[in-house]
């Protein structure tokens, strides 16, 4: 097991370097001089030169990349031009809202997906199955920011049962969480259903039934336990999806999270903030996937010998 853990962690290193290389290159893809764009049209040449020097843009490109990686590892992402504050402080002040929303969205999606997926697999080709499959298809096909706006129209503006925008209480979290969770729920419902269907016709399920076990025991102890493995791997991939869903949902509900900061910074040409946010999200997704892989290896010993 420890061998497997070490190998998985070592495999992460080249990917992390690749991720950092892409994020680093982003700034250099800008058509024109990024410093000129950041400082605006009225910047003095001397000002630009100082800024270039501060950002280390006069160094050879491989030194720049090396410094970028070293600084990032130390949590130093430079200073925001707009706020004149270290980028890391800006992110620290906001990331909590994004994490709360993502977790809540995650919980909502699996609270819907598990019952819906299991029931539609057991009651295959019945009305319940059709209904949840139609729900899943619509859930996947809606832009989540639009769902957020519709929820806001109905529950906040029309019936006034929940607040429309802002943060503070759990009630502020309800509509955004449903918004983030719906698409995730739709995808997970389909996956759990097909995973259950695959297992349900296996010999050992028939054996379990033949032994005279209760249907509930068969479903939960024998079928679900085996059906859950493929679902688990997808949870990791979905995390990036939920995080980016949260980023856009924050705009709809005016939540002061990472997404808001990122989009505002794009319009302010505050590139270092954008760079750091993208890097942070990608690294979070990678680490989450690593953890899930390790858990997976723990649950299913076959994985370790691949």
């Amino acid at each position, binding site marked *: 097991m420890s061998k497997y853990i070490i190998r998985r962690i070592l495999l992460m290193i080249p990917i992390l370097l690749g991720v950092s290389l892409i994020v680093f290159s982003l700034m250099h893809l*800008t058509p024109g001089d990024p410093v000129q764009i950041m400082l605006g049209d009225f910047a003095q040449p001397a000002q630009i030169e100082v800024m270039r020097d501060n950002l280390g843009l006069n160094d050879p490109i491989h030194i720049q990349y090396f410094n970028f990686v070293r600084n990032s590892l130390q949590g130093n992402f430079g200073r925001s031009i707009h706020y004149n504050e270290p980028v890391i402080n800006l992110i620290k002040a906001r990331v909590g809202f994004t994490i709360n929303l993502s977790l809540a969205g995650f919980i909502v999606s699996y609270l819907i997906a598990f019952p819906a997926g299991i029931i539609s697999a057991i009651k295959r080709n019945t009305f319940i199955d059709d209904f949840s499959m139609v729900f899943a298809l619509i859930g996947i096909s809606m*832009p989540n920011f*639009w769902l957020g*706006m519709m929820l806001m*129209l109905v529950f906040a503006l029309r019936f006034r049962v929940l607040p429309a925008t802002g943060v503070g209480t759990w009630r502020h979290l309800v509509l955004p969480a449903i918004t983030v969770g719906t698409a995730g729920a739709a995808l997970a419902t389909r996956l759990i259903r097909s995973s259950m269907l695959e297992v349900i016709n296996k010999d050992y399920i028939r054996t379990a039934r033949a032994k005279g076990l209760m249907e509930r025991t068969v479903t939960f102890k024998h079928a679900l336990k085996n059906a859950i493995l493929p679902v688990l791997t997808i949870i990791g991939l979905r995390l990036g999806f939920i995080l980016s869903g949260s980023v*856009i949902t924050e705009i709809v509900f005016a939540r002061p999270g990472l997404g808001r900061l990122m*989009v505002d910074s794009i319009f302010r040409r505050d590139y270092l903030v954008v760079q750091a946010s993208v890097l942070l999200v990608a690294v979070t997704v990678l680490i989450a996937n690593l953890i899930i892989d390790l858990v997976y290896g723990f649950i299913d010993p076959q994985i370790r010998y691949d």
Partner: protein
Amino acid sequence: MANNTASARVIRQLKNNTRVKISLGLIILIIGVAIFAPIISPYDPNEINLGATLQPPSSQHLLGTDRMGRDILTRIIYGTRISLLVGIIAVGISGLLGVIFGTLAGYYGGYVDGIIMRIVDVLLAFPSILLAIALVAVLGASLFNIMLAIGIVNWVGYARVVRGEFLSLKNKEFVSAARAMGANTFRIIFKHMLPNCIAPIIVMATLGMAGAIITESSLSFLGLGVQPPTPSWGEMLNTGRQIIRQAWWVSTFPGIAIMLAVLSFNILGDGLRDALDPNMVD
């Protein structure tokens, strides 16, 4: 011969599938709306009428008007063009890149495969919409750049499928036979191996259209996509959000348009997958 019966089975499957027929009909309708937009739309999409701002739906303006008195139905009709255009070009870019890299990785294997698959792993670490946002942020917001960005972030899926298919075909007898008969690499790839990947690519491209339309609308919603006054569904929702308290119709109808378009491509993609992938037939 075998090919004929296989395609006959596929067509039979598709013909019997009501959902596929309905979604195909909807897609043809959407394409028709895009082509004939100037003929069927009641107004000019950019005609500002300050005497009729924020009108609720009525017999004159079936879906109401926006803050500048522009007819929402007309702008939704014209928005179809942007969504389809972005979808087709973006899917074309990702399909092309994916086939090229997937073929190289699967056919040559070894370190070529190693390098390409590491690039794939790296790109998979980024949520695709976020990478698209970052790309547009540095390249600048324009119609061309969003098509490019959406295309670039989505090729990975195609590459993985093509590579997998190539790896399993590489050692098949018909490929060895073709090689023994003196076929060159080019001929083996294009005549013998790539045709086997067409079915999964068609399925992915159809579902990819759905994804590209949603991504375009998200980017435009954030103000990073198609710039006003060009009518795009996402851009309409962006302005709708700002006045959601006064005018529900501005933010409701463009979203329904997005949902119907995306739903059609998703249903068609699901149907095609069921028909083209014999493993899934039960």
